[in-house]
């Protein structure tokens, strides 16, 4: 037998003590969608589960690969598993009261209508530029009032100070340096990808707390 789990009330009381009761209630009431569970998405999911977000809707189609372990929140014994199976296991160990729904799906334009109903924030955390553009386009067309947080430019090992959050239009938030591209031969390094993930997660939590400023 492992140690006794804290009750839901004990768990959330500890979070409310850290975050403030009102802010915590807002986090707990929210459902957030995370599209892509790689270097950005797996880190964002861990951060949001730790913050006590009530419900996470995770989407990915890929399996855990050796090349992921330099920056993604997976373990050696999870190699070969679907990310939609591996990550919920980890999240349950962090926050057993976070309601996690995972869907193994390669999102295309046609999936988007209806997919994110009920989500307070949608998070784009794909790796391919074309997939990012497709998702952002589709979400802005189908969910024009739902905040959308996207990661753009975190490759390489330039200064982390270049990574920032900005808003475009009414609902789109872009996190990253805007230019560093994997296709240019730049590596993806754990700390810099995590810095971008932290920008995305922070913006999501700010939105949930009621602050829409980037």
């Amino acid at each position, binding site marked *: 037998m492992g140690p006794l789990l804290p009750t839901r009330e004990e768990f959330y009381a500890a979070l409310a003590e850290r975050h403030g009761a009102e802010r915590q209630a807002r986090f707990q009431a929210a459902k957030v969608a995370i599209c892509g569970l790689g270097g950005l998405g797996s880190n964002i999911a861990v951060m949001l589960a730790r913050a006590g977000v009530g419900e996470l809707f995770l989407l990915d189609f890929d399996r855990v690969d050796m090349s992921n372990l330099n920056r993604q929140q997976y373990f050696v014994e999870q190699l070969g598993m679907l990310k939609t199976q591996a990550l919920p296991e980890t999240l349950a160990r962090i926050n057993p009261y976070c309601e996690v729904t995972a869907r193994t799906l390669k999102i295309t334009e046609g999936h988007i209508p209806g997919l994110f109903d009920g989500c307070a924030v949608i998070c784009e*955390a794909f*790796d*391919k530029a074309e997939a990012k*553009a*497709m998702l952002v386009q589709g979400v802005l067309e189908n969910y024009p009032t739902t905040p959308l947080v996207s990661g753009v430019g*975190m490759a390489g090992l330039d200064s982390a100070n270049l990574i920032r959050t900005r808003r475009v239009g*009414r609902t789109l938030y872009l996190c990253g340096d805007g230019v560093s*591209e994997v296709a240019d031969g730049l590596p993806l390094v754990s700390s810099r990808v995590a810095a971008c993930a932290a920008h995305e997660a922070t913006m999501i939590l700010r939105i949930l707390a009621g602050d829409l400023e980037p």
Partner: protein
Amino acid sequence: MVTINGEKLPLDGMNLLDWLTGHGYDPKRIAVERNEEIVPKAQYGETVLRDGDVIEIVNFVGGG
């Protein structure tokens, strides 16, 4: 004047798709907002820029 990514340009009457392709943008890797509304990709070719328009072009790069 038309404002594109913060820069004021004399582009009244310009076709959006022509401007994008003329400036090296790949329509598959961008999202375009006009006056804070998304422009559907299928409408780039029929969108004509007008004085006072504020255009934001988001150019996505790979990595995540």
